């Protein structure tokens, strides 16, 4: 069983299984996952919530921050939250 240890390993995995991501002149690859569920609407009812999470290697997408637009696989999304990094990976919640 191979162990992913180096940045090159991670980049290979993200490029192999992910989609192209860009922000300005910064370009990388990331895993883009969708999940949908019904959530409280805060008013006593429910709404369909679509969670879009982009996983990239930390430091590979310059300028990624809340409220900026990133291009994921050719579509523009607005960053809602940059979640705390887990080891070398960063998860970015986007909407669009």
């Amino acid at each position: 069983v191979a162990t992913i240890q180096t940045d090159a390993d991670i980049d290979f995995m993200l490029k192999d299984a992910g989609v192209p991501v860009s922000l300005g002149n910064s370009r990388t690859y990331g895993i883009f996952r969708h999940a949908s569920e019904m959530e409280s609407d805060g008013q006593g009812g429910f709404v369909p919530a679509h969670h879009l999470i982009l996983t990239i290697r930390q430091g590979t997408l310059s300028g990624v921050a809340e409220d900026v637009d990133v291009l994921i696989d050719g579509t523009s999304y607005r960053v809602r939250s940059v979640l705390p990094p887990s080891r070398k990976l960063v998860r970015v919640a986007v909407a669009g």
Partner: protein
Amino acid sequence: MILEVARLLTDWFNDPVQGVAARLNSTVTRDAGEPLPAIGTIADQTRNNLVAQTKYPTTPGIAVNVRQLPLLDGNTQNVSADGIADILVRVCRSEKDSKIAARDSSYILRAIAQSWRAFNLDTRIRNQIQVYACVELAVAPNFEVEENLIHTGAVAGKLRFRDIAVP
């Protein structure tokens, strides 16, 4: 009782003269350059499956639900056929920019409040359920579903009614 109050109010909100869209077009003034917000479908829980499931009829959209219905039957010597319908009118929209959603929701909630106040100017009757007073009207805080595009707001109100079919 639930059906009549919900339908009376929903039909009023869809009225071409007194309804929410009409108010939004005429009596709700907007800051210069800001577009007329889309309101989508206005529906109640007795005529729309999604609203009956406490969802929204469309996005954007407006859902009218009766939450509870306390009946004022405490006096056994003098039976009252009155009650209070606790109604929640929820508004939702989907916008990439949360501030745009908050702006548009604000205009729409004001239009709902205006339309509802006009509803209160007279008694309304359906199937011998007579709505005769509004004892409470409030705009709830807006809410943004976490990490999502959905933005919601609501107007809550309590309408007193009487079942005039009760002898």
